[in-house]
């Protein structure tokens, strides 16, 4: 394992410290319990949005804390959900009297720890609503599994819900927008290489020299099937097929296309995928009116990518375009 780290035990704490120091204009960091919060929190009358989960998916979620997006992010250990304590602390830190929305990726650990935290915060008189994201179409039979995972779509939920909060929507309204985005986005990922969790020190799984894993989540956990390497265009089609048929998307839809790198794949490849994804969507009469291309929800240094397609309406389009000022996503200010 070769990584630019010191003691594996200190990876998250040291990285968050660097993040805090680099973005002191945008965020403040509490180190015990560990959470990242908007420098201007709590914003009176604005719904606070808290997300979090295991670390190793950077810039998610810390990179999305700031004006127009998250109020706070709670980073757990690498690939491990944070405990309730820092979630409760973050929830209190962003509560400006309008209540707090928890955006939680559907992984058992995240769901259980946020559930406990929400109970504790509610016991302290804070109004908390929870939206669980589950956009991963790789999980086929959610009845016989822990359910679909929250992956790439989470970034879009956080941006759009954040804009709704910033414009002054109520907690119910912000939660409803978040639910709507989650209901209209589908994601599917592919891995070319595994990733190495620092404290484990060994690859999370192994892939042959010519193998790729279709349907991975964001922890290097294996996915739907393992197939021989294919050209990028074929992979794009393989990822889009279950996405498009699941919602289903239909001719005439306007969508946001999000091609996300898993951390170790260079931009040059993401744009190759983006190009063909636009072509495939166009051939189905679906128009890409907004996009996001880059490494936004990652699995450490894993090579791979995910494609998310979000069906937009006028309101969600406007909220996507609204100003945002975070470490990882910034426009309009």
């Amino acid at each position, binding site marked *: 394992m070769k990584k630019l780290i010191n003691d594996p035990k200190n990876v998250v704490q040291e990285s968050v410290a660097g993040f805090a120091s680099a973005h002191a204009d945008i965020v403040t960091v509490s180190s015990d319990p560990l959470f990242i919060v908007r420098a201007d929190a709590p914003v009176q009358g604005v719904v606070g949005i808290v997300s979090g989960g295991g670390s190793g998916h950077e810039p998610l979620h810390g990179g999305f804390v700031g004006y127009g997006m998250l109020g706070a992010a709670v980073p757990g250990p690498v690939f491990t959900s944070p405990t309730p304590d820092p979630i409760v602390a973050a929830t209190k830190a962003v509560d400006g009297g309008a209540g707090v929305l928890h955006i939680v990726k559907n992984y058992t650990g995240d769901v259980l720890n946020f559930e406990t935290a929400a109970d504790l915060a509610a016991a302290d008189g804070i109004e908390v609503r929870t939206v669980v994201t589950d956009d991963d179409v790789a999980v086929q039979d959610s009845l016989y599994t822990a359910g679909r995972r929250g992956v790439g779509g989470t970034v879009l939920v956080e941006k759009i819900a954040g804009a709704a909060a910033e414009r002054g929507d109520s907690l119910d309204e912000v939660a409803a927008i978040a639910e709507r985005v989650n209901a209209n986005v589908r994601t599917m990922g592919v891995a070319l290489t595994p990733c190495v969790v620092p404290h*484990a020190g060994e690859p999370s799984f192994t892939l042959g020299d010519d193998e790729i894993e279709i349907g991975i989540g964001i922890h*290097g956990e294996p996915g739907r099937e393992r197939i021989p390497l294919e050209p990028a265009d074929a992979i794009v089609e393989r990822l889009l097929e279950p996405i498009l048929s699941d919602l289903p998307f239909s001719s005439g839809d306007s969508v946001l296309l999000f091609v996300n790198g898993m951390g170790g794949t260079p931009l040059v490849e993401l744009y190759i995928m983006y190009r063909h994804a636009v072509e495939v969507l166009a051939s189905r009469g679906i128009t890409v009116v907004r996009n996001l291309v880059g490494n936004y929800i990652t699995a450490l240094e894993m090579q791979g990518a995910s494609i998310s397609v979000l069906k937009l309406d006028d309101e969600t389009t406007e909220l996507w375009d609204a100003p945002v000022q975070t470490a990882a996503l910034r426009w309009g200010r």
Partner: protein
Amino acid sequence: MTLGTDWAIAWIRRSADVVAEHRVELITLDREIGDGDHGENLDRGFSAVVAKLDTLPEGSTPADVFKLVATTLISTVGGASGPLFGTAYLKAAGAVAGREDLDSASLVDLLTAARDGVVLRGKAAVGDKTMIDAWTPAVDSAARAAEGGQDEKSVLEAAAQAAETGARDTEPLVAHKGRASYLGERAVGHRDPGAQSSSLILRAAVEVAG
């Protein structure tokens, strides 16, 4: 010979040692069908618990010990296993509240409440390839042993043996809960890490029982 606070503390200390010793094994099991952190998670949690045991006031009951374990695990482990084990100890504490010495029947109450706590939070059934596949046979075996009039150590022995068998028997299963559920058929042939850690912890209970 009933089991009291000394046993409860010894059980937890022994659990911490066992988890530390098996840290890499649990990480490896979790890497195969999960995300490779189970050993790390539990090791972090039980280390924190051990550091807090000395803060227990004189005259604490077994329930006090288990409550301390519960809150510490909940606030230090994270992941799926943190809330699950945390709830197990919390419910266990509730089941034996006020009792200073636990007899065979109390031990069955304790184990049953712990298992029910995990089910309450995680909603897993037997056969879902989770820690429940260790806990439920353990509870059943312990109950049979207690009904059969066996002593405390034998009850715990019955639980530990059943948990070990239960953990081993997760190997051929397809998972329906937790991360392994995303693997479908590919989880077959791998032991569930949470079932394995549960069996280690139940074995620790016997080892320190007089």
